[in-house]
């Protein structure tokens, strides 16, 4: 566990809960937010999921034994929340309607990407939820497979295969839909 994590756990166990809470959100909020946002794309969804992550983590703090490290534990909760959300939204943008996503991003003032980045986001939106999560974790953050494995409870070999497959599909989509000259 990092020193930050150990300090926060000590604060919590010493009864300084408000301080522990503030430290958790301050230290890990931004990292977790970008992890979630890269997968769900829309800010409002990412914000909702991030808050749910902290609510769940806080309600489980008493039972947290510190074996996996505080950030790893939070990362796992955030990933599970995100995947559950994507599975529930399968009929929405999460699994297959790149054009709807395109419309939402065009109206999103928190998206500043060019046409190539928009095409990439549309390609990612066609992936099934778990493949999408694996792709985003590797592609944007270069998260080590071992860390993804802990978050998803999946073997490293299976994750490599999943990423390889997702990368191929995203590449094919982008190549077929990109609007720039080579």
């Amino acid at each position: 566990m990092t020193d930050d994590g150990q300090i926060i756990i000590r604060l919590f166990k010493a009864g300084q809960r408000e301080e522990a809470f503030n430290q958790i959100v301050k230290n890990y909020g931004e990292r977790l937010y970008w992890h979630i946002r890269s997968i769900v794309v829309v800010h409002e969804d990412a914000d909702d999921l991030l808050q749910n992550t902290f609510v769940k983590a806080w309600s489980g703090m008493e039972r947290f034994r510190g074996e996996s490290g505080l950030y790893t534990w939070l990362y796992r909760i955030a990933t599970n929340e995100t995947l559950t959300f994507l599975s529930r939204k399968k009929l929405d943008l999460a699994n297959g309607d790149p054009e709807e996503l395109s419309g939402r991003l065009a109206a999103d003032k928190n998206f500043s990407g060019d046409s190539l980045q928009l095409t990439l986001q549309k390609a990612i939106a066609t992936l099934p939820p778990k493949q999408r999560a694996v792709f985003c974790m590797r592609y944007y953050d270069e998260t080590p497979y071992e860390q993804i494995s802990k978050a998803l409870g999946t073997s490293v070999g299976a994750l490599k295969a999943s990423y390889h497959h997702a990368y191929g599909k995203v590449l094919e989509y982008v190549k077929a839909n990109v609007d720039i000259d080579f």
Partner: protein
Amino acid sequence: MTEKDNILERPELKNTPFSVPEGYFESLPQRVAERIAASASKPAARRSPLRRWWLAAAAACLVAVAATALWLNPGSTDASLALGDNEEYAAMAEWFAASGAQPSELEASGSETLSQDEIIEYLAYNGLSGEYIYTALANAE
């Protein structure tokens, strides 16, 4: 390999095109605290004992019906049951890897309700060795 084949490796694509509203992270602790307080003040949903009794009775009836159906027709192999069997999928992946079959062949062999993505996703997240899937993908390509 063309420039198009390397398009995903462009550095500008790896930078996030997203931003957050001004002051978002600064106000986050307070908003999370409010949500925690709101969730703590929600009364826990309680089921009446009568409702629980009815649910238990309904579950028992379902189990009895399913057991009777299986007893009356033990030889049937329901596709939906097979879907839950990890060994079936492992065998399918092994066959897929060994034969180099195309996804369309998989569909033609009775798996028409599953896409290639769904099969791969299922295999990947149910502990199957990545080597099988990787080889299968390489063969299919």
